């Protein structure tokens, strides 16, 4: 067996993050809860893992150990997960400065990212379940971190209820699937499953339906989306960053790997269910986002719509390598632009505590650089040419045409027209004349925390534009990011 050194290296992030969790715990004891220490440890751990993964990015080989597949697919998705965790840490710095206890936040975040990486490499229902739980349980702590805020408590309770319900659905589906196959490995299940096979065993179909339901809850797809806006409204913006990017990418990567290896979408009714979910998520998410006045709720609904677009690529993922490419490009665009947008919202909402749209009125005349960056992020999310978001949209349209999915194309068209309307409506707010009574803006001094968020957003903006202008770089990169079935 010939294992490249890079493959061993690419396993490293799990160990690094695991070690950092212990180190943060130790440092909490030794340094008498000096938050700077744990912050530095967390950032180094994440940065180290990111650089290791970037070093290993062009690998053709793969390793499969009992629970994990270490391949290009894992490297790509872990990179996205770690980048978004890194951004969350940086963004949360401003918000956490009002809190006495900061270390636990970093600790919980590290554990959840470890769960995310595990999900990206899970090739087995057992590791999938461990990953999901490793991510969801610390998430409860993160969501409820602002425990003095009653909205935060509400969000925490809502999320925990739904999280437990979806976990129990997941476990039940696991039981049914295991009961049928006596096996939990995706690739071995995949060798048996065909459309005719599924037709013969209705109980297996029930199990798969429960699995889809549980994943639908986690990804907040319509009709399982009701918790999203409430939870988003209740938590601080950095936590939204974590919810909207890290969690969703991790779960998406796991379910995508399952669907690639096990071709359940060949079955007529399963495909129809997925199509209906995508259709509804796009239309309902966009329509509801259109009517929001609160920026956080708006973000919740727009993330539902984006996940709906991504869900489309899952429907065809076992037929064509192109749909995986679509999903990856779209996800990268979504990640970079929503991280940028959330960073800016973190900056602005740290000045004034409300998340109403009125805070953004006339921002351009006070802070031109930030509003230009926000405009670029909005345009990228709306999919306007010369940004990375457009490349994702381009891929998606191509996928829909290749697959002759005309109903989804209709949904896509309706959705993207509505999306452009609301993104632009918010954007134009930035350039209106500022309201008179608020002209005496409370000037906030530039701390290190704010500066680092500014720099992070600047880098993200440049990336969105550069990668949108020269998408070939990304396309070459993701050529290696596919799971190789054994």
């Amino acid at each position, binding site marked *: 067996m010939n294992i490249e050194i890079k493959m061993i290296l690419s396993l490293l992030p799990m160990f690094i993050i695991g070690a950092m969790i212990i180190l943060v715990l130790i440092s909490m004891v030794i340094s008498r809860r000096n938050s700077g220490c744990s912050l530095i440890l967390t950032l180094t751990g994440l940065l180290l893992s990111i650089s290791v993964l970037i070093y290993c990015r062009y690998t053709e080989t793969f390793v499969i150990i009992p629970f994990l597949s270490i391949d290009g697919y894992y490297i790509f998705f872990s990179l996205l997960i770690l980048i978004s965790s890194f951004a969350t840490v940086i963004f949360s710095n401003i918000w956490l400065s009002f809190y006495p206890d900061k270390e636990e936040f970093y600790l919980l975040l590290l554990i959840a990212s470890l769960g995310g990486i595990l999900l990206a490499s899970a090739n087995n229902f057992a590791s999938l379940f461990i990953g999901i739980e490793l991510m969801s349980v610390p998430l409860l702590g993160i969501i409820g971190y602002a425990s003095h805020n009653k909205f935060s408590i509400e969000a925490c309770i809502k999320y925990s209820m739904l999280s437990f319900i979806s976990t129990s659905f997941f476990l039940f589906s696991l039981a049914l699937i295991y009961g049928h196959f006596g096996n939990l490995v995706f690739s071995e299940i995949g060798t048996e499953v065909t459309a005719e096979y599924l037709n013969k065993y209705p109980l297996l179909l029930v199990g798969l339906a429960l699995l889809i339901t549980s994943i639908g809850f986690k990804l907040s797809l319509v009709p399982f989306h009701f918790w999203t806006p409430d939870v988003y409204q209740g938590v601080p913006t950095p936590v939204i960053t974590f919810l909207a990017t890290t969690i969703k990418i991790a779960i998406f990567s796991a379910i995508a790997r399952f669907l690639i290896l096990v071709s359940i979408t060949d079955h007529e009714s399963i495909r129809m269910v997925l199509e209906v979910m995508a259709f509804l998520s796009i239309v309902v998410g966009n329509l509801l986002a259109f009517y929001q006045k609160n920026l956080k709720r708006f973000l919740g609904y727009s993330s539902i719509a984006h996940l709906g677009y991504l869900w489309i690529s899952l429907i065809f993922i076992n037929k064509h390598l192109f749909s995986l490419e679509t999903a990856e490009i779209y996800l990268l665009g979504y990640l970079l632009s929503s991280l940028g947008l959330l960073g800016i919202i973190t900056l602005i909402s740290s000045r004034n505590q409300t998340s109403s749209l009125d805070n953004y009125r006339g921002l351009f005349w006070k802070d031109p650089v930030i509003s230009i960056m926000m405009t670029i992020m909005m345009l990228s999310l709306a999919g306007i040419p*010369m940004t990375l978001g457009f490349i994702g949209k381009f891929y998606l349209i191509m996928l829909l045409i290749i697959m002759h999915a005309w109903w989804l194309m209709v949904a896509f*068209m309706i959705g993207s027209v509505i999306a452009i309307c609301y993104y632009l409506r918010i954007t134009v707010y930035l350039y209106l004349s500022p309201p008179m009574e608020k002209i005496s803006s409370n000037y906030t001094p530039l701390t290190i925390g704010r500066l680092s968020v500014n720099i992070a957003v600047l880098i993200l903006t440049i990336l969105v534009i550069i990668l949108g202008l020269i998408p070939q770089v990304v396309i070459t990169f993701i050529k290696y990011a596919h799971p190789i079935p054994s």
Partner: protein
Amino acid sequence: MFLPWLIIIPIIGGFLCFPLARSGTEGPRWISLIVCVLILILSFEILWKNDYALMQYGKELSFWQHYSISWISRFGIQVHLSIDGLSLLMVLLTGLLGLMAVLCSWRELDSTGWFHFNMMLILCGVIGVFLSQDLFLFFCFWEIMIIPMYFLISLWGHKELSETSRITAGLKFFIYTQSSGLLLLIAIITLSLVHYSATGLWTFSYLQLLHHPQMSYTVEYILMLCFFIAFAVKLPLVPLHGAVIDAHSFAPTTGAIDLIGLLIKTGGYGLLRFSFLLFPRASINFAPTAMMLGIISIFYGSWMAFNQNDIKRMVAYTSLSHMGFLVIGIYTNNSLAYQGTVIQMISHSLSAAGLFIVCGLLYQRLHTRNMSQIEGLWHNINYLPALTIFFAVATMGLPGTGNFLGEFLILFGSYRFFPTVTIIASFGIIFATVYSLIMIQRTFFGSPNLSLRLKKISIRELFILGLLMCVLLGLCFYPQPVINISSWSYINIPY
């Protein structure tokens, strides 16, 4: 290589304006002025440097200059620019109208760098549309010019109206253009996919897609319709005219000029260059329907124009009616009508620009656009009444102006093939006379309000209108250069 510079110069100009975005200094105005002059100089340079004798009159398409580098090799997308007679004329027109727009807004707006930044981006997008030979690139430019336009409408819109109604007008414009743009994108991708599935090669190049393999007639027809809708929204044609008319009545004077002169032309240009060549069979079968829409536009536009009280809305409807002639010319499919179409495109945008500028000047002095409140201006603003009459007469297509030549050539060319359509369309000219004369009569005749002492027309304003007038007169009395230049690209538009 001049071609990339034609696109890069406005971008550089825009970004130079940008640091001055918040200060109301003179800088941005001079920068945009220089950019427009540079575009004009560059395009004249291209015109003079080319040796037309070398042009091959063969079956292959030929362009004067090419510029191409690889862009996204995964899909064989290139940055491929080239220019021929038709695109050169359009670029020249763009430069001229850009210049007018800059001069026009010289004093009128609290014009900041942000305004000029948007304007430069529109210029860049429009020139890009005229030059690009790669359909993906074409679509990028096509979309790029919409966003700044939205900002111009919703931020600098008509002052009398509330902010929300301006934003709504901008949004309406955006929804129309954006949804039709999506159709265009889907059609472009489908075309490329058809090529890929037949040959195994990814390409978005216009020249290669022209020789696309046979697709089924239904597919061709649907794709052609997608292209047609996208272009018709920008023309505008009757069922799709709502957004553009609204945008006119809400837009600032300069925005209106841009819209009419630049965006509209991309619609006509797109129909000429893409719709017909890529889908010849479907287009020929679609011609009667398109002409029908053209006739409806002619009559609907002129009747609506006759009904308006708002002077700017009236001008917008007149342009709708002229676009009807344009579509008839394009779908007639012969060389005479094609030459008429080119002249009509140029002269119509010049005359409409003139009328829009006149509206702006009147509004500056009277602070109303309602024609029923304006009366007896005949002796009031020194040269303005005379100039207005000239542009109104040009709009109705009186001999001596370019519009006459354009309409004459279109009708002349189409009579041989579509006599009925031509006869019906000719009656449209009568209504053109009616609405332009009624406008003159309402605003300039009647009992003068003697207490009104209005500011005289300034040298700058006189220069703008005078220049437009000279070009329009020149187009009729000596149209041969324009016909020559455009005929060099006629072989690119073979029927």
